[in-house]
């Protein structure tokens, strides 16, 4: 009995989660201006999308921001994760992890105030800086948990057999934690590409990103063009999830 209830509620949750997404995908191919009833199949809204310069520019910005921010925050986050693992300091974990728990709106507002006070021009640069700031902690945590799962005697064995600390890190520790680093990078990328709140506060007037652009469009009406861009965004995210889930512990082998 209770199993049936569990199964039913599980299914309900998934339906609630995925049905709206499926509807968005379906309507992006709907030959109608209204998201009301199915009329017929069309690529029209994707063509509209390709001719929408503002949207394309925003997409380009988003991609550039996400790539830059995830690259930088992966490097910094890996270093932070290693520091967390290596030096059992009291305050460091709090400093690294606090941004994960602080409400985004607070982070956004405080970053805005900070940028203004140091006279930083708001734009792509300030968005990238903000995204790096909140992604580093996530990468650090993923990398550290990967490190804690590693046999501590492995880097020691490398030193023992004649490797300098740096060589031991490069040839033994780094390959072993690589799945964690890649997972961290993908996480940072997805966090960055769909961030709205922090980006909203730190974007200024010039630069727009996909989430900001979509938001400004639906303020007027939810056009099927929004469905189309949402579908594309979903595809990208889905691809990343598939890649991330394929990074199993086995893939550390250099096969």
């Amino acid at each position: 009995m209770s199993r049936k209830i569990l199964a039913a509620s599980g299914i309900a949750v998934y339906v609630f989660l995925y049905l709206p997404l499926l509807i968005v995908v379906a309507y992006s191919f709907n030959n109608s201006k209204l998201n009301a009833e199915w009329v017929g199949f069309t690529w029209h809204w994707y063509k509209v999308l390709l001719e929408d310069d503002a949207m394309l520019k925003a997409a380009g910005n988003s991609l550039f921001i996400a790539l830059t921010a995830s690259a930088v925050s992966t490097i910094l986050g890996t270093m932070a994760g290693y520091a967390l693992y290596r030096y059992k300091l009291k305050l460091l974990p709090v400093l690294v992890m606090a941004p994960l728990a602080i409400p985004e709106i607070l982070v956004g507002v405080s970053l805005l105030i900070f940028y203004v006070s140091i006279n930083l021009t708001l734009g792509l640069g300030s968005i990238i800086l903000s995204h790096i700031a909140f992604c580093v902690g996530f990468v650090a945590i993923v990398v550290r948990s990967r490190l804690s799962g590693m046999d501590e005697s492995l880097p020691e064995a490398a030193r023992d057999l004649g490797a300098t600390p740096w060589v031991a890190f490069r040839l033994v520790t780094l390959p072993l934690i690589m799945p964690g680093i890649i997972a961290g990078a993908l996480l940072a990328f997805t966090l960055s590409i769909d961030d709205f709140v922090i980006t909203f506060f730190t974007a200024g007037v010039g630069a727009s990103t996909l989430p900001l652009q979509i938001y400004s469009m639906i303020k007027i009406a939810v056009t099927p063009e929004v469905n189309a861009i949402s579908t594309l965004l979903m595809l990208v995210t889905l691809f990343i999830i598939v890649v991330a889930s394929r990074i199993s512990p086995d893939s550390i082998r250099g096969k």
Partner: protein
Amino acid sequence: MALLEIRNIVRRFGDFTAVDGVSMSIESGEFFTLLGPSGCGKTTLLRMIAGFDSPQAGEILLDGKDLVSVAPEKRPIHTVFQSYALFPHMTVAENIAFPLRMRGMGKDEIGAKVKASLEDVRLADRGGRYPDELSGGQRQRVALARALVNRPRLLLLDEPLAALDMKLREQMQIELINLQREVGITFIYVTHDQTEALALSGRIAVMNAGRVEQLDEPSKIYDSPKNRFVADFIGTCNLIDAEVAASGDEKMVLEIKGLGEVMAKGKGEPGTRGTLALRPEKVRIGSHLSPETEENHFKGTVHDFLYMGDVTVYIVEVAEGVHVEALLPNSAAGRPRILAAGDPVEISWRYDAGTFLHE
């Protein structure tokens, strides 16, 4: 000059002292064992020799030169870790090649050495495998091959056989001794298994709570333990409270409460309290023993016995509250058990079977 000289080293963790003033000197070519119960500081000592940890006081010298300030990768010392620590992302051959690569050896030379090394440990056909595709014994051999391929001056082995089952462990013990004789490299071997230590070692340092209790050849450790801890830790031993009654130069008379006078080897001040240590296999037991043959002769009753297959251990009550364990081989096939609980028996032992331990 000794190969490795350790002088009074101390390592504390907070207010806990893990290694407490240890000194020892290890000769070139030796098979030297650190033996002691869990937590006595064996691994901590080994880590300081390897260079992963530094002593807070004392010196470590290799060939008479200070070692403490030398980085681990610069020490001609390799370690076989308890977990083997094989690199999981490298093949067996790449693992063995690692120390050679670190020395900057050329590709061809590395290839030849790795091949020879794989043949030495009978894994010639496994070079392309990954460590997790090997059995425990094979991993063990790869770890050994990797640590030896560079021909270090000193090899440290931290309980290398602990993870293997009994049969495989005995087989590996024999392989280890042969290997050590063959390559002539000095081994410092850590174990908490006393039979393994006795079987393998040239000399043993018995450790307890961060200190060396006794450092000697296996037979000396077994036959003449220096104190109660060593006597108790190595093999089984009767430990009976005693007091010196009279003493010559190498023979003494002990007084044991409830039992009377017992002859033992050694000397001591009359009146000194201590312990008589007596190995069960040195105690003869039977229904009737001819009284003249051995100095110590007592009558008692069988309190209990343990049938072990090859031998039977009898616990004999010789006086109120005084029990002596005696070992009797079940050598004659088909022989019925002659003694049962409650039977009257006689036990005897030579004076030099017993050691008096000052407390």
